[in-house]
């Protein structure tokens, strides 16, 4: 039947975006490496060859070998296993902090953009206050007040990303709000929450998806930075940033204990950026200047 073939040929928006994304070679490579990292993080107990925190004083600062493929650190711990467990922490911190920013910032932006008026005024001034400091410094200030620790780092980075999500959501909503189908829904007597969550949100989500991926990269970098300064994960937790900080004094003897955790951060962040850039190009070419 003619009708059914037409339907099967027609591509959904999702299919079109996936196809576009798959055509982007950089995004595909980034995505594959990212999947490997995520899988390693999930199955860390199986992927790791040694206990990440078990010390072995007789095995200090050994160069890469068959037994320890990335060598050992100043306490004789296996660097490969620590990097694998570190992926768990970094991805979790990135995911949790950005989820927080997404929910809080997204809701603030939705409310602010949809209702406008005094509510918009108040929310946006609050966001302006947060924007007075560059993101990392804001996170640093919050951690300084709350005290060191990974939970506080998640909180601090989450808050520092709220402004960008709120602003992005707001501008997206402002553009969608004026469209005819929103007016139609209002004329039909739909409630505000129904209009916001069923009509506006799904249609203004694409820039948010891109921002989420790119912010995740930034959050992982910031978390590693804070841990490097000794404000995040505390030893002996295998966290990439703190691994670099604790191994730094031994760099002349064993550069791999610094090089490898750094490469891990670098590769993860790069892949997230590549996927984010690919998503942006696939979802909406007009967003090219987003970052």
């Amino acid at each position: 039947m003619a009708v059914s073939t037409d339907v099967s040929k027609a591509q959904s928006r999702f299919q079109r975006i996936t196809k576009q994304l798959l055509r982007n070679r950089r995004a595909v490579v980034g995505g594959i490496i990212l999947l490997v990292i995520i899988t390693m993080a999930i199955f860390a107990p199986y992927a790791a060859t040694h206990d990440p925190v078990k010390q072995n004083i007789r095995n200090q600062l050994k160069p890469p070998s068959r037994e320890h493929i990335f060598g050992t650190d100043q306490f004789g711990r296996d660097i490969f296993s620590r990097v694998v467990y570190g992926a768990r922490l970094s991805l979790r911190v990135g995911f949790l902090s950005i989820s927080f920013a997404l929910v809080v910032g997204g809701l603030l932006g939705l409310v602010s953009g949809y209702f406008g008026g005094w509510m918009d005024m108040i929310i946006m001034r609050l966001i302006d206050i947060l924007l007075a400091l560059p993101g990392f410094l804001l996170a640093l200030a919050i951690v300084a007040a709350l005290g060191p620790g990974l939970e506080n780092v998640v909180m601090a980075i989450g808050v520092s990303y709220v402004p960008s999500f709120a602003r992005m959501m707001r501008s997206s909503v402002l553009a969608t709000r004026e469209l005819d189908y929103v007016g139609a829904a209002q004329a039909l007597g739909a409630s505000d929450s129904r209009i916001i969550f069923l009509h506006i949100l799904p249609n203004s989500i694409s820039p948010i998806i891109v921002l989420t991926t790119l912010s995740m990269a930034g959050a992982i970098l910031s978390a590693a930075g804070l841990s490097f300064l000794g404000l995040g994960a505390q030893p002996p937790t295998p966290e990439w940033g703190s691994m670099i900080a604790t191994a730094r004094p031994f760099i002349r003897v064993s550069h791999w204990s610094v090089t490898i955790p750094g490469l891990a951060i670098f590769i993860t962040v790069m892949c997230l950026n590549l996927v984010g850039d690919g998503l942006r190009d696939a979802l909406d070419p007009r967003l090219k200047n987003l970052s």
Partner: protein
Amino acid sequence: MRDITNIIAPGTFLVMKVIVQSSLRDSMGLNDPFYVQYFRWLRNAVRGDLGKSLRSKKLVTTEILDRLPATTERAIAAVTFAVIVGVPVGILSATKPNSWFDNIAMVLAPTGVGMPVFWQGIMLILVFSVHLGWLPSSGRMGGFEYLILPAITLGTASTASIARLTRSAMLEVLQQDYSRTARSKGLPRRTVTFRHALRNALIPVVTMIGLQFGGLMSGAVLTETIFAWPGIGRMIVDAINNKDFPLVQGAIMTFALMYALVNLIIDVTYALLDPRLRLVYE
């Protein structure tokens, strides 16, 4: 929130400790509600009094002014490096899109943005100080050679962003009608690129430099320790570790002020670059 008095009066005898703590709390005004404390701090801050460092007992303003030159010097060096390298790379890439130069540059650019700045600093020290022995690994003895590695570390991410933005802005401007007109009336390629295209392409780039300044301050916090650079960034980290809250507050506020100031300067620069905007301001 943590109790500062616990840190200042870590007494062994509980009774003594409680007495000392409560008198400290009184004298520091910590028994007042937080908004009273906040407005007291604000009132003093606008008068230029940021309090005293809990550790060194020196004025916070003195501590900050002592370290401001080092941080500023390095930030200026980093921006200069980023502009000197980033803008020409962007121009070259845009005038010959998809050439080998363009391809290499555009593969390297995201690398520069994704690299953890503190790790990059350590790697540069490893290569140029430890292995090659060309440059000093740390300190600020006044010589230019002490500034090179810190400035490159701090400037790399900005270089990459500036190169990418210059490229896309130049590509856009070169396609505009006035660029085509200039070319078709027989002007040399160089004149079109620099006289017609570059001036228009630089406007978003200048904005970008302002935004990069935020990254430079975060980078200062992360890398001044590595290079033993006596600036505000290292002071903040030390102050946080010493729980020296007045110093942390003062230093972060200084950074916020600098951030605002740089962006104000950038806004004014627009008028110099773009005569159309001068009309708007008048």
